[in-house]
């Protein structure tokens, strides 16, 4: 999968590494800002209230 991605990117190796790094950071940013906050309440830990929660 990643080999396929590497083959299909153009440019010198450093440019491909740079591009992939940017992509990885973008994925992490999306996760930190939107995905993880949306998933966190579904996790079975971290309840602090009695009764309803």
């Amino acid at each position, binding site marked *: 999968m990643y080999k396929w991605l590497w083959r299909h990117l153009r440019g010198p190796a450093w440019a491909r590494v740079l591009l992939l790094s940017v992509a990885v950071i973008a994925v992490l940013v999306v*996760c930190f800002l939107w995905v993880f906050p949306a998933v966190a309440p579904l996790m079975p830990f*971290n309840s602090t*209230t009695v009764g309803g929660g």
Partner: protein
Amino acid sequence: MSAARSVRGGVAAPKDLRGGQPGRLGLSVAGVVGELMITVGMLLLAFVVWQLWWTDVEGNRAQAAIVAQLDWAPVPAPGAAVVTPPPVAAHRHDASPPMAEPAHAVTFATLFVPRWGPDYQRPVSQGTDRATVLDALGIGHYAGTAMPGDVGNFALSGHRTTYGKPFNRVAELVVGDPVVVRTADAWFVYRVTSTEIVRPTDVQVIAPAPDDPAAVPTQRSITLTTCNPMFSARERFIVHGVLDYWLPTADGFPAEITGGA
């Protein structure tokens, strides 16, 4: 490896098992599956980093900003109290002016716990749902329970881990420790009377009279609830306290938080 060897050594081993199309396909499928699993593993690791570290960074920043926004008179540092001595505040034990419950998610008080450090001051907001109060604003006030200083039970909930972890050091509290609530108009100095560990369904801990849920309350109580053990939702750690005294904010600062007691 040994399996592959025995196949190779077998008399009827078809040639395409060694590098023919079907074998290649199997290998590349295994490769993709492996890479996907590594990717999922990295994402799970990122989630743990987010939950254990980033929510604290955001939570501490947000809660400090909320306290700053309240714009209440700063607490004098222990040394500064000597230069300009605040008027010796008379401890009041009478009924404090009643306070109406604010709208949901409105910050109406701050909490000081000297045991958790001289700089500990966290906002207290109305409501206890996670998305709008506990994760976003810090400590939450159970709707329908007493307000600070009222006869009844001023019940609060907060995270013990993550999201700024306002109740992180809850297990360090000992009987007699001051728990100080500040509102716009008054200081309320509670003292810890007991701690207990209960099941999440044990709602009597936030009843108006937690000792005897059926009784009509006579004491001005405070109760903190948080998770127990840490990083688990199995139980709840509960701290009970009773009001020692209150004083109007205009009369100065309680000695408990200025280092005088």
